[in-house]
Structure formats: structure tokens, C-alpha cells
């Protein structure tokens, strides 16, 4: 099967690789481009560990072919921190609020929460829970993930988040 050159802008940089049409976006990112931040969890469109942002949409990259994302603007967890390594508000929130234990779901959680906060900068707890309902965490029980996202929302709004992690 012939290879197709697929290019997209990932974390602000133009990148490309020659892949088969059947190459999934998650494999393109991890294997062709070495961006291993997004994880393969269930590989069946359920768990959300592979979530990346494609043209302003949270997408399960195990359920999209790389060719479908050709020309797109993609954000992965590698693009969340500043160029100087400074953590984004969400990354800081996950650290401060203990929003992870094993960390496997975290890249997907953060990328999904990023889009959620872009669309709804001041979400209620219920809106956060619905917003991350496509991301499974098998460690935390979600309580601290919700707090981490609340922390980030507050920080992005210039407020201090006072609630402590459990």
C-alpha cells in the first residue's frame, strides 16, 4: 500500500510523516513523530487517554485516521507547558490538587479539560463532570480531577482557588 505524506501543525510546529491511509492519528503521533504524551488506553474509543485537540475539538485519536487530520491544527499534552517549561494552569492544578495517581489518563484529561475551559471558562462541578465524561480514570474517583480543573479555571480567571485537595 502506498504511503501518503501527511502534514499538520502540532503544538505550533509544522510536522509531517509518510504513512498509510489506515494509520490512526494516535499511531502517527506516537510512532511516526515520537510524541508519546497521548496514551493508548482502551483502543476502543471509550477511555479518552488518547484525547488530543484537533481544530478546536477534543478528539479520541485512536478513532481518527491521520489523513483525516491532514492540515489540521493539533494540540497535544506536549504543547501545554510554556516554552520556558512553565506549567499551564491546568497542569499546575493537577499537581496542586493531586489530580493524578498513576498518571495514565492525565494527558487526555488535561487536553479535554483545556477545550472545556476554552468553551466554558467558569464551569459548575456538574458541567465539569459531564465535560470529562469521555475520559476514564481508574485511580482517583475523579474528585481531585474536578478540583484540579476548578483550580485551573480560577487561576485563568485571576482568582485564587481555596479548596484543599482530599
Amino acid at each position: 500500500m502506498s504511503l501518503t505524506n501527511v502534514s499538520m501543525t502540532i503544538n505550533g510546529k509544522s510536522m509531517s510523516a509518510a504513512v498509510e491511509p489506515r494509520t490512526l492519528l494516535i499511531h502517527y503521533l506516537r510512532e511516526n513523530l515520537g510524541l508519546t504524551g497521548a496514551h493508548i488506553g482502551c483502543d476502543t474509543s471509550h477511555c479518552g487517554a488518547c484525547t488530543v485537540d484537533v481544530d478546536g475539538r477534543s478528539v479520541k485519536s485512536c478513532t481518527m485516521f491521520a489523513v483525516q487530520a491532514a492540515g489540521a491544527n493539533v494540540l497535544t499534552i506536549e504543547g501545554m507547558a510554556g516554552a520556558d517549561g512553565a506549567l499551564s494552569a491546568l497542569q499546575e492544578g493537577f499537581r496542586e490538587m493531586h489530580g493524578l495517581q498513576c498518571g495514565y489518563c492525565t494527558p487526555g484529561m488535561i487536553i479535554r479539560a483545556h477545550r472545556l475551559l476554552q468553551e466554558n471558562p467558569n464551569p459548575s462541578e456538574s458541567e465539569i463532570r459531564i465535560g470529562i465524561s469521555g475520559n476514564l480514570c481508574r485511580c482517583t474517583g475523579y474528585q481531585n480531577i474536578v478540583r484540579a480543573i476548578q483550580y485551573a479555571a480560577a487561576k485563568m480567571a485571576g482568582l485564587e482557588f481555596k479548596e484543599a485537595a482530599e
Partner: protein
Amino acid sequence: MIPGSFEYHRPANLSEAVALLGQLDSDARVIAGGHSLIPMMKLRLATPTHLVDLAGVAELKGVRLEGGEIVIGAMTTQHEIIGSELLAQHAPILRETAEVIADPQVRYVGTIGGNVANGDPGNDMPALMMTLDATCVLRGANGERRVAARDYYLSPYETAAEPGEVLAAVRFPVPPQGHGWAYEKLKRKVGDYATAAAAVILTVSSGKIASCAIGLTNVGGTALFAADAAASVIGTALDKPTLARAAAAATTIAEPAADGRGSAEYRAKMAGVMTARALTRAFARAKS
């Protein structure tokens, strides 16, 4: 899981897409959001030799009013349906239904066209389209053809669409001002298909139900149009015996398979329970 090999095509308009389907062999498939097709391809339950991606076909996008009808382009995503002000104003049942489909990520990519055209009895939009008396607009080599949603579904994954035809849009009459509406879906978890679900659209006049349509999801080989259940509530103020009668009529036509969601008997019973709940909420929302 790696899908089988295929050639990828990305037509720029619908005519080109239809022409491509005419030229390619019969194992060519259209791909919309791909959130039913790609998982099937990863399991090698589907092995198309060509994929014709409709993502670049702008004319299949968007929601508009056209001569007393609402037209929704097939490539409109569930996320866009949830965000549509036009639908929120004229047919809010679309939002209520889209909100219980899968999860946020799937809704960003999954389309109404895929949900309607796939023919999976677990999809939520077919029963809703039947309830709204929608029409499926098909485009093929011989031009446009329209099929009523109530006649569209033949058996699981088999629809009235002929090979080479593409679902371009669904269209339905704008429901009357003040109509009542509800979509009730029983499911085990986010992302699950319905154990049973019911869509209801009704109108009320002088406190009594003047018109009613009911559709059922995932309790048969196709979505079901529950005509008898709907007829049983006309002229009533939805008292308890009427609700029980409507629920029983819905249960009677349900023929669900036994699966992880419950026994066939349980799921048929839940078709009735969802019907009663949807009727109750729709009636409360309707303006006399």
C-alpha cells in the same frame, strides 16, 4: 488494533463524492465522523477497500430553516446540534437527544448523518427522525431521492438507501409553537447504547393531547414508530390509566434482544417505562 488497508478519497463536493462511489468498487464506503465505522474497521468487521471522506463537503454542513421545514446537513456534528440556537428555539428535542449520545469527544466528531444512515438500532437519531416525521434526502448518480424516515429502516444496518447513494440531509416540519417534547434514555453508563429509549412530540389543546408521535430506540431490529401508543393518548389529559395503556402499547411492539443490558422481557418493559416518562415530561412542557 490496526484496520485493513484502503485507499482514501476526499472529494470537495457532493457531486464528486457520488461520482467517486459510482466509479469505485462495491467495497467503497462513505466515512462521516467515523465513530461507528472506524471501530468496526479496527475489529476487521468492516474492511472497505476505499473510504470516501465527506469532511471536505461544505454543502453537507449546517442547520437551516427552509419553507416551514428544518434542514440538517448530514455532516452536522452532534456537538453542533447541541449548540444550534435555531434548533434550541424550534426543535429542542434535538439537543436533548444529542446530549445523551456517547461522550463529548464522540459528539465533536460524530454526525447526525452517520447516526441516521448507519442503520444501527442502537443509534438514537432514527427514532427521533421517525417521531418528527423527517425525510431522508439521498443523493445518487440519478439525482436526489427522498424517503420518509418511517420507511427508511428495513432491518439492522439495512436501509432504503441504495448502493452508491449518500444521505445528504434530513428535513422535518418545524414542530408547532408550544409543542411538548422529551427524549428519555435508559442507559447503564455514559457512552452506552440505550437499554431502551423513547422520543415523544405532542401538542396540547384545552388541556387535552391533540397530537402525538412516539419513537423507540434499541428495542427491535430497527428504531420503531409506536403509532398505537401515540394514538392511545389522543384526547386525554394523560391520567394514570392512559399512561399505563400507552406504556403497554409500546412494550407490545418492542422486540429487543437479550444482552448485557438485560433480558428481552426487561428491555421491552423499559420501552414502556421510557414511553411513560417521556410522555409525562412532554405533556408538562407543552403549552395549551
